[in-house]
């Protein structure tokens, strides 16, 4: 049934020696645009990008094979994203939905993002309809389950999470061409989750690990984030921010890009405050968009070697 939407299936079967053009197919699918955007907007993440390219290539080749009526099973595209906080798992999942849609693998290309709360019910008989409703909403698109390990709570025998997993497994197997399930979470806890749910592990073909960012990559990300909000660093501020990142990376609770975003938000606050303090001076556009070194150096990471959010006295 899903074939009826696919443009290539309406074509007649080609002769055995007919030439096909992979490049033309690549151009026609607009995948290039998405992949380029991925390269431009996502810094680093080498293994992730390689895997996405591989998947895109496989789906394209599959489309060409279909023109010769070479049937092969629809590839399982369920994925598992592991990585530390702030490494871009959700962002990539969003992109994934778009890529799969362009390749004609999912019909609608929307992303339904859920956590345990949306899947697991509170009383007996509540879980199955709840999970099924979410699955039905995600059909034709991508179901993204954030922090999937919360689904399974081994310490509580009567936890309803197991029921939800069971339904998910069934759908992942039977409705493979209707939806793609992407699980995400921190590496060690996901490993534990798969260890106790071997069925889940074997149904997921792609386990992608998101590496931590280096300081240079984080600086690059910071500049991109600022650019989207119409701010920019002064040259001194850029140096200061690089120092900030190197210091911050050594402190506890470092969450990669998310920490960078928070740091930038605080820098914007300080910038606004600084502009306000010198209110007598008339401001230019450059003043409004430039973040100076002093906005960043005021952070307590520099002064006390502590996080900005921590309480004052060293308790």
């Amino acid at each position: 049934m899903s074939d009826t939407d696919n443009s290539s299936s309406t074509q007649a079967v080609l002769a055995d020696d007919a030439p096909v053009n992979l490049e033309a197919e690549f151009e026609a699918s607009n995948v290039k645009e998405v992949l380029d955007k991925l390269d431009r907007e996502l810094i680093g993440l080498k293994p992730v990008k390689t895997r996405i390219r591989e998947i895109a290539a496989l789906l394209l080749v599959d489309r060409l094979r279909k023109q010769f009526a070479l049937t092969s099973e629809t590839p399982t595209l369920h994925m598992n994203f592991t990585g530390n906080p702030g490494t871009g798992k959700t962002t990539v999942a969003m992109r994934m939905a778009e890529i799969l849609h362009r390749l004609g693998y999912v019909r609608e290309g929307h992303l339904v993002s859920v956590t345990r709360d949306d899947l697991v019910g509170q009383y007996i008989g509540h879980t199955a309809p709840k999970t099924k409703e979410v699955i039905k909403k995600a059909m034709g698109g991508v179901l993204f389950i954030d922090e999937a390990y919360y689904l399974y709570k081994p310490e509580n025998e009567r936890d309803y999470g197991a029921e939800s997993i069971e339904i998910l497994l069934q759908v992942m197997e039977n409705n493979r061409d209707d939806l793609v399930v992407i699980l995400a979470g921190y590496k060690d806890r996901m490993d534990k989750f798969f260890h106790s749910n071997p069925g889940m592990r074997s149904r997921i073909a792609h386990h992608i690990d998101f590496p931590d960012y280096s300081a240079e990559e984080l600086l690059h990300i910071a500049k991109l984030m600022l650019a989207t909000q119409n701010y920019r660093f002064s040259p001194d501020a850029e140096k200061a921010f690089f120092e900030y990142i190197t210091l911050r990376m050594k402190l506890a609770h470092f969450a990669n890009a998310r920490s960078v975003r928070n740091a930038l938000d605080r820098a914007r606050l300080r910038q606004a405050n600084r502009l306000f303090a010198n209110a007598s001076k008339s401001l230019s556009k450059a003043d409004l968009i430039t973040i100076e070194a002093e906005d960043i150096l005021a952070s307590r990471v520099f002064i006390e070697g502590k996080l900005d959010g921590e309480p004052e006295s060293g308790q």
Partner: protein
Amino acid sequence: MMTNQGNRITQGQFSFLPDLTDAQITAQIKYALGKGWALSVEYTDDPHPRNTYWEMFGNPMFDLKDPAGILMEVNNCRKTFPNHYVRVSAFSAVRGVESVTMSFIVNRPKKEPGFGLVRQEADGRQMRYTVHSYATDKPEGERY
């Protein structure tokens, strides 16, 4: 019922046509989703033409993007009630409409016994006529 050979009940859309295939049902659902209507699956074993309120199979499905989810429910319902009437209804929430705008049968019993004419003698030798479904002679759940 003489215009309708074989006693097939005719309610909702497409009921004079041969049974819809899954692909045709999907296409109809897709049309409804495109209009932003919420679909639901209903079943009954009382084929009387004035029986408008059928039992709901699960909750109505809001915010779906793809027909596959609804077709899955249809198939579940067919599996649970292979010998009942099953229909898909589409509800339009547009202000001023707020009612079912589309409804078609997707499953019917293998054998539909049809309807008989019932005469009732009323005041002064007056005759009243109505139809009666042979299926409803048996209690609910044992009709087909």
